[in-house]
């Protein structure tokens, strides 16, 4: 830019302003009530200040800014115009004229001007104090600037705002937030609940939230005097959003909120003093750190930083549009202008291949109402979670092996140009979305039987009920087909995991001096992508165990009369809705005696109990946490994180592990896995008039046991089922319900037998109800600490069903 040209213009306009301001000043002195003149005067000074800001004329700007603030106060009537003010302003103008002369000569302002500039601006600012005008104008510099809060934010005085105590009380690690961040404290008024406010929601939805904590305003009152309808909560947090956004967010409760910009912290102030922007949406996010850290970055990093910056600014402008559209009754043209702004923002994102949703552009054109535009903008708000536009497009897949890392389902069978076997690459999140939707559909359709029941029982509409049921059957069939079809899309052959085994077995057996042959069968068996991905690690662990502990050294095998080459077989197959994977070896098998000894030695079970275990039971001890039988700790397995890790991983995806071992013959491990994890089949049971769900795959059987057949030993209850002793626990006791288990007319208890690891336990309940498909939602927030529950599910009648986790419960 041609700097001299601009500087000439500045000097020209500054002189013009000064001249006119001088005239106005004299006129105003004669006629202090002339609003028109005062406004003119203010504007002259304002223009001058604005112009100074374009250059690095700090000394000049400080003085002019102080003069502007003073005039602003006079203009809006909070300060009476008098001689003292006029004197100070005239002196400031003289100084300004000198400075402009100096700028004309040297192009800059000498540092020597700084003290005089300070003194002048202090004098002007001292006059801002009401009543200060009657006393001597030479007031101390440190006089607090303003009686009005907005003047305080505008004050360019170098002394920063004092740090309020509540900011000091924030957790120390919050201070590491960016210096552009804003700390806020929100103390809802006690009566807020009656006004329909939701303080927690409001605090949670603060834009740009980095940290949030809740506390109390006053210590909790004694329980007997506590009024739970009065709000005693207080929230504090750090937000990266510009302070203007926060004011906007809290606009209905401004008096209950305090803000503090972190840039005013003593340790941060230095870093940001060059950036004295206050409350500006676009500028506030621009910290000096953001700007500075790229000096040494590589070109790639630079390019990335540039894209990030563009994305960030786009998002800020996007939010601006939403705010504008959210104002009451916007002008008709606002919609058009915002729509154009959105269109242009999207255009830039697409050009730069930044994340943007594809439908956004096409659906924008047709929008004509504020509401539609707002919901459009909220739906299509740019997010880094969106796939990048270019990767989203349809393309013919170019063969290549499909690995679990490859998140898209592409076909190995798609050859270029073959035409008949085209493969569509689709982002995984789209499939997940479909999966979520069909999940909701499955639940929603379950409302129809309730509806039919109501039609019949409440409205006596038997015919209608029948028709609803018939329609339900149709929808049910379609939903199930749809669910099946979508699940098919997510299916991957287990072979994708098996692929790496060949190399693994070869490398490890070589290292151990063993000769091992790997046989893989059924690699085409398919299961849900998530199941497959969760499977990789446990399977590798099992294989390593087999190689390390199972297969013997060649000479040992020869001595035992076995072929020198050991064999490990991995077989997968599907049975109804489960996938089974069997890993068997013809090695030494697990030695039950040694397992017993180890378990006792490690204090996992008492010695007397170990002695009573059968060999088959003793072998199961290797699933206990912290068990390892390796004589020497090799780097392959036997670090004490043995089979319990495998079991945990498999059970996390609702699978089971089953181990059988014959000493000298080998070991067989069988994993039973669900085909999919999206929909859970649960059985509904009732205890103490409450209904609970129990995952179907844990249930062994439901039986009726007569009260006389229950044996009591001290606290414990057992019964004998099919010749085996099954411990019984009342669900009422486990959940601390007040009621005790009911019996039916025949004096029989309802017992739900569930499988816990390799043991069966009977749960006493009141009634059994049917089985149903649910979408299991994990417990969140405060509830996530609850043990004993796997989650919740929304039922067709709108109720919430708690799903038990018997493993944690018993």
């Amino acid at each position, binding site marked *: *830019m*041609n700097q001299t*040209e*601009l500087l000439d*213009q500045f000097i*020209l*306009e500054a002189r013009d302003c000064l001249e006119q301001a001088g005239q106005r000043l004299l006129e105003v002195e004669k006629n202090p009530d002339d609003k028109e003149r005062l406004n*003119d005067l203010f*504007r002259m000074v*304002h*223009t001058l*200040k*604005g*112009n100074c*800001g*374009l250059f690095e004329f700090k000394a000049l700007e400080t003085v002019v800014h102080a003069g502007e603030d003073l005039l602003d106060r006079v203009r809006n009537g909070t300060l009476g115009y008098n001689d003292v003010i006029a004197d100070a302003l005239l002196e400031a103008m003289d100084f300004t004229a000198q400075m402009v002369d100096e700028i004309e000569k040297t192009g800059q302002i000498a540092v020597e001007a700084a003290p005089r500039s300070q003194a002048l601006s202090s004098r002007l600012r001292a006059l801002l104090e009401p009543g200060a005008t009657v006393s001597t104008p030479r007031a101390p510099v440190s006089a607090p600037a303003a009686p009005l809060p*907005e003047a305080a*934010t*505008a004050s360019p005085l170098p002394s920063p705002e004092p740090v309020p105590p509540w900011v000091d009380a924030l957790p120390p690690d919050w201070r590491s937030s960016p210096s552009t961040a804003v700390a806020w404290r929100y103390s809802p008024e006690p009566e807020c609940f009656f006004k329909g406010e939701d303080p927690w929601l409001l605090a949670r939805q603060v834009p740009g939230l980095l940290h949030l904590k809740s506390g109390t305003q006053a210590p909790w009152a004694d329980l007997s005097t506590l009024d739970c309808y009065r709000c005693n909560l207080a929230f504090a947090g750090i937000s990266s959003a510009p*302070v*203007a956004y926060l004011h*906007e967010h809290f606009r209905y409760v401004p008096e209950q909120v305090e803000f503090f910009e972190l840039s005013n912290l003593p340790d941060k102030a230095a870093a940001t003093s060059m950036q004295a*922007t*206050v*409350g*500006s*949406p*676009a*500028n506030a996010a*621009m910290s000096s750190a953001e700007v500075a850290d*790229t000096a040494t970055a590589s070109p790639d990093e*630079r390019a990335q*930083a*540039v*894209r990030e*910056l*563009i994305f960030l*600014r786009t998002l800020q*402008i996007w939010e*601006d*549009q939403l*705010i*504008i559209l959210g*104002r009451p009754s*916007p*002008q*008709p*043209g*606002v919609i*058009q*202008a*915002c729509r*154009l*702004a959105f269109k*242009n*923002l999207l*255009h*830039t994102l697409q*050009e*730069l291949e930044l994340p943007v949703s594809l439908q956004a552009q096409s659906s924008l054109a047709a929008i004509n109402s504020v509401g539609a535009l707002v919901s459009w903008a909220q739906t299509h708000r740019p997010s880094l979670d969106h796939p990048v536009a270019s990767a989203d497009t349809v393309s013919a897949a170019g063969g290549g092996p499909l690995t679990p890392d490859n998140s898209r389902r592409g076909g190995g069978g798609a050859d270029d140009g073959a035409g008949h076997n085209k493969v569509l690459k689709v982002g995984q999140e789209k499939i997940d979305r479909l999966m979520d939707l069909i999940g909701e559909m499955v639940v929603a359709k379950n409302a129809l039987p309730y509806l039919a029941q109501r039609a019949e029982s409440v409205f006596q509409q038997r015919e209608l009920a029948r028709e609803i049921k018939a329609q339900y059957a149709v929808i049910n069939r379609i939903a199930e087909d749809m669910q099946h079809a979508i699940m098919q899309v997510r299916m991957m052959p287990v072979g994708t995991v098996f692929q790496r085994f060949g190399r693994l077995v070869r490398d490890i057996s070589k290292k151990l001096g063993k000769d091992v042959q790997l046989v893989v069968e059924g690699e085409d068996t398919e299961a849900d992508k998530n199941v497959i991905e969760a499977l990789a690690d446990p399977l590798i662990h099992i294989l390593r165990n087999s190689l390390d502990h199972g297969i013997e050294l060649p000479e040992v095998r020869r001595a035992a009369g076995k072929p020198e080459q050991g064999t490990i077989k991995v077989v997968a197959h599907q049975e109804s809705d489960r996938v089974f994977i069997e890993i068997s070896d013809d090695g030494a098998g697990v030695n039950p005696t040694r397992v017993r000894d180890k378990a006792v030695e490690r204090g996992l079970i008492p010695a007397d109990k170990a002695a009573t275990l059968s060999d088959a039971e003793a072998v199961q001890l290797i699933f206990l946490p912290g068990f390892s039988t390796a004589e020497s700790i090799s780097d392959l397995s036997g670090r004490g994180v043995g089979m319990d890790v495998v079991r945990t991983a498999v059970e996390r995806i609702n699978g089971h592990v089953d181990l059988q071992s014959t000493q000298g013959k080998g070991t067989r491990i069988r994993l039973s896995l669900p085909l999919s994890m999206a929909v859970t089949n649960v059985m509904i049971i009732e205890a103490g008039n409450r209904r609970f769900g129990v995952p179907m795959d844990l249930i062994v059987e439901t039986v009726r046991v007569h009260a006389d057949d229950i044996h009591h030993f001290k606290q414990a209850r057992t019964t004998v089922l099919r010749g085996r002793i099954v411990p019984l626990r009342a669900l009422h006791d486990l959940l601390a319900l007040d009621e005790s288990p009911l019996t039916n007319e025949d004096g029989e208890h309802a017992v739900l037998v569930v499988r816990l690891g390799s043991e069966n336990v009977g749960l006493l309940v009141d009634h059994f109800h049917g089985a149903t498909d649910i979408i299991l939602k994990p417990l969140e927030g405060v509830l996530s600490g609850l043990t004993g529950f796997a989650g919740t599910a929304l039922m067709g009648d709108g109720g919430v069903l708690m799903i038990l986790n018997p493993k944690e419960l018993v």
Partner: protein
Amino acid sequence: MSRILVVDDAATVRMYHRKILGDAGWQTEEAINGLEALEKVHNQPADQPFDLFVVDINMPKMDGYAFVRELRRYTAAHQAPVMMVSTEAQRQDTFAAWEAGANCYLVKPARPQELVLAASLLLGDAQAAVKAAEGVKQ
């Protein structure tokens, strides 16, 4: 080429903004207050309307808020985004700018590259955005 109308009563600021925006490759025109700006909008050639307004707040005759409100009252006329640029760094000005319907609010003196970046995003000019963002990151 995108056309931008710079509205400011200070000649220095007008020159400054026109220089920056012109260097970024856009065609600029100027108006010294809201009223003159409205006249220019009214008389703009139909095939070459303004694509963006860069508007000061405090101006004689008609200030920035009034200008945006007046501008947005038309539905038939071409509606371009408005970027408000003002020294009023206080929040009530941001609110007032939003209230009036300004699409973006920048505090003066805006760093030239930030001004160009915001303008290029509102104009949908990706090349200019990249260039400006590189400038910010320098």
